[in-house]
């Protein structure tokens, strides 16, 4: 089990990362990642919904006829998202205001329906919760990474407004420069950042693969 556990984390966080590889849930990914704290907030909300929806879909999988499974997934996911939205409004009202429509829009995050369909409907409850955890973490980490990158370059700060999640006085976080390269905070910056993240991942994968299968440099170029 431990080995397969590591394997599953590897696949959720890296090999099959929902945002980076499967390119699911791009709408929230692109829209809320202007700052680190927004990415973290939506990442955690998505993670919670994904784990709970995987658990419920898996628990009910024996009674659900295949013909009606999609409406049932939608029903389950929509209810869970409504619950999460109420919880955010009650305990993290600032963050709820910052994320706005994107909390209810978690419903439309295809990553969640995708995991229900390909994993939770065929596996045990425990395994499905674990799947929600690894896939949700992969998505949340990507949101945080892109949020941190855009905030750093776009605004010159990092971890600003963390009070929205943890309470306390409004804080500006680590301010490294008064102004940044605004483009990155605006919508096009989201696309550039995601593209850079995907390119970086592919580059790392390729380098690793090359390291594992040592081919003489000349031969490799000839093969292409």
């Amino acid at each position, binding site marked *: 089990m431990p080995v397969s556990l590591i394997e599953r984390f590897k696949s959720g966080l890296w090999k099959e990362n929902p945002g980076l590889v499967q390119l699911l849930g791009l709408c929230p990914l692109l829209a809320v990642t202007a700052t680190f704290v927004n990415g973290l907030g939506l990442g955690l909300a998505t993670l919670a919904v994904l784990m709970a929806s995987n658990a419920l879909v898996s628990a*009910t999988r024996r*009674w*659900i*006829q295949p*013909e*009606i499974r999609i*409406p*049932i997934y939608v*029903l*389950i996911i*929509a*209810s*869970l998202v*409504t*619950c999460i939205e*109420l*919880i955010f*409004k*009650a*305990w993290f*009202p600032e963050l709820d*205001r910052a994320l706005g429509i994107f909390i209810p829009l978690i419903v439309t995050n295809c990553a969640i329906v995708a995991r229900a369909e390909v994993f939770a409907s065929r596996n045990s409850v425990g395994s499905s919760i674990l799947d929600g955890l690894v896939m949700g973490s992969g998505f949340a980490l990507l949101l945080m990474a892109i949020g941190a990158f855009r905030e750093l370059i776009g605004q010159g700060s990092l971890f600003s407004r963390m009070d929205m999640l943890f309470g306390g006085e*409004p804080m500006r976080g680590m301010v490294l420069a008064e*102004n940044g390269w*605004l483009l990155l*905070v*605006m919508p096009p910056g989201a696309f550039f950042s995601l593209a850079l993240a995907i390119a970086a991942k592919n580059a790392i994968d390729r380098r690793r693969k090359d390291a594992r299968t040592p081919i003489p440099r000349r031969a490799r170029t000839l093969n292409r």
Partner: protein
Amino acid sequence: MSERAVWKSGVTLAVIAAFCTALVALTWQLTAERIEANKKAWLERSLQPALAGLFFDSSVSESMIIIPQPHNLPGKDAAIVYRVYAGETPVAALFVVSARDGYAGPIRLLVGVTMDGTVTGVRVLEHRETPGLGDRVETTKSDWVLQFDGHSLHAPEADGWKIKNDGGEFDQLTGASVTPRAIIKAIRETLAYFSANQEIVFAELPAESEGE
């Protein structure tokens, strides 16, 4: 699909729908009170800054009235006014108005005015101005909006209620002149309305009976 299977599917859907509804209803039960309290606290908190230096009773949000169209306030929707009292005496009014000639859509403003017509504070509640240029009207980005404190309808006179570029008395924002112009115009219109209609603003009944 046989009739039996259709029935079975229908029942499954109904059971799951009932379960999901119960889940949402339960969460709502557990959170409703907190959400209501948060909303009120947020409103009070966002109203306070426009009342800098005034003594007043804490429940500003309960004294709301709505001034329907037609009115001479900026904005094409009904305007919201919070009346501020110290004991029984009115001390100020907080106007929620919209400057309509912003660069990108209406700019929602909170303007606090004392009974003698002096601005106690201006805050931008909502806007869609350009990040890095027009958005410096937010207090978290710059102090631009604080310069109106202490001014009134006749201090400066009408031709002074402009940005310096246009020959007025107020600072502009580098790279954004549409936004400041719109806000200055809206503030002045609000002051003019209040000086002409103080009785109307304070005469009506408290909000509990009509605002809801």
